[in-house]
């Protein structure tokens, strides 16, 4: 490399390295170091895995962890099932103006904060809310019904919040599917089901994978929706992290929890990539 190019290279590399080392890599190493620290007395610590042991021996923590993982998988699958027909409609059936209008409409809710969206669901679902009043008005129920603070409400909120991140990659991959390929499928005797299974879904796989990864991540790491819409029993793992850090000031245990959450999400992302033969660069970049 010539000297000038070399200088340019170094100038461009520096911000990247600073960003990645100071804000991503070292903080995570530090978090790991804190998580393997045990407080034995005031300001004296020993190295050990006691925090992780606490996690495995205390049923509440373990159950919450598993529940969060399973519910996030469920939310991801449901988002995919709901979003797929819609994305297909936008990509293949709607044309011209209607197509771009529908696509934009999908994006609109996500230009506003998650807090506003959650607030909307609270107004709809709570005891004095719209649905409760509607049901009373129609005469299906006699008194007010509380639809907030349970798993279903939380699920509705989670799916709503991450819908966009499923629709956008799906629409993008489905748009690149040539109509004539679908026609050929029908000409060869396929019907809606076989064509979808044999042609549309295999073609959309990269979009499905990247959509699922992002939605899963967002659900797993969500704090707002479970706190506001979920009930007392539906504790989310992020709520445990928050309470260890901010309420109880037990950073050691909180850091261990954070690391477990990170491990879980990386593991599931890795599995998803392996199962479908995709790479992170291709699905995200």
């Amino acid at each position: 490399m010539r000297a000038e190019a070399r200088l340019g290279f170094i100038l461009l590399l520096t911000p990247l390295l600073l960003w990645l080392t100071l804000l991503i890599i070292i903080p995570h190493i530090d978090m790991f170091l804190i998580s393997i620290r045990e407080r034995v007395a005031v300001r004296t610590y020993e190295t050990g895995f006691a925090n992780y042991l606490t996690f495995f021996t205390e049923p509440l923590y373990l159950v919450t962890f598993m529940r969060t993982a399973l519910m996030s998988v469920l939310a991801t699958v449901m988002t995919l099932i709901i979003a797929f027909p819609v994305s297909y409609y936008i990509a293949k059936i709607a044309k011209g103006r209607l197509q771009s209008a529908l696509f934009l409409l999908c994006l609109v809710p996500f230009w506003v904060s998650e807090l506003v969206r959650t607030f909307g669901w609270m107004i709809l679902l709570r005891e004095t809310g719209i649905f409760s009043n509607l049901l009373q008005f129609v005469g299906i129920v006699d008194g007010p019904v509380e639809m907030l603070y349970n798993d279903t409400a939380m699920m509705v909120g989670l799916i709503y919040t991450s819908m966009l991140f499923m629709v956008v990659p799906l629409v993008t991959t489905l748009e690149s599917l040539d109509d004539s390929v679908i026609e050929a499928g029908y000409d060869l005797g396929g019907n809606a089901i076989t064509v979808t299974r044999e042609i549309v879904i295999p073609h959309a796989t990269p979009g499905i994978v990247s959509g699922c990864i992002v939605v899963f991540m967002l659900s797993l790491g969500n704090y707002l929706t479970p706190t506001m819409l979920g009930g007392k029993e539906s504790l989310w793992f992020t709520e445990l992290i928050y309470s260890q850090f901010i309420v109880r000031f037990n950073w050691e245990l909180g850091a261990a929890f954070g690391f477990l959450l990170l491990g879980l999400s990386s593991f599931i992302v890795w599995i998803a990539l392996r199962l479908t033969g995709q790479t992170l660069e291709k699905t995200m970049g």
Partner: protein
Amino acid sequence: MIPTIKQSRFARFSYNAYIALFFIYLALPLVVVSVFAFNDSLFPSLPWEGFTWDWFFGDERPKTGVFNERGIMRSIRTSVFVALCVSVLSVTVGTCNAFLFNRYQFRFSGILYVLMLLPLVIPGIVLGISILVFSSTVANGVEDSFGWDIEALRPGLLLVILGQFSFITTIVTLVIAARLKRFDTTLEEAALNLGATRLTAIRTITMPYLGPAMIGAAVVAFLMSFENFNTTLMLVGSDAPLTIAMFDRLKEGSTPVLNAVSLLLMIGSSLLALMMIAFQKKE
């Protein structure tokens, strides 16, 4: 199922009905939030007590409108400040990254690229706590060895900005890199042939081409920062940005003033997004 292939009327009808239902589902919470901003009642719920502008302009308790509510206005200013810092920082670093990965082949570029994508797959709350832990390790270290207490490294605006910057930069990099990939490098070579220096060529040819993508990325960064909740929650100090301030109020029980703020937010971000789209159409 594409338009050129005949489907039964029933199948077509139910498909269209499903799409309609989906968009109702999308719109419902936002419509409800907006409508109740105008309800003349102390709670954002039924019954409907009549139309009022009080939740925007009211200046008497208990109906203090948004524009007269000091706490909310201050948190909006805080959010705007944070979002501006984050967009400037992330667009600067993101542009450097895009050029680096586009123009240079070097060892470890593959690894660095994957590392660059990582913030997307780290849960926001984990990013928040890792930065919180690290900054307080540094602050404690400095305090123990030099006796200086660095206030900036304790939870507060600097940490909020850094925390949001740490993952928004990835997204900004991807947006700018996507445009740079489509750039015809022969244009730059032509400029070099005509006697321009490398920097002049980049300044006069490449940057104007990248401009729309950079502005688009800045808008995306601004919006993402403005509405970020998870990372901010872990790093926030005494000046709360809008989302945190609204969250605290929502926990206490809400008045329609929150609906009014939400409506303003929706209008603001839609305008910003529409401006961005119009701007990109023109290009």
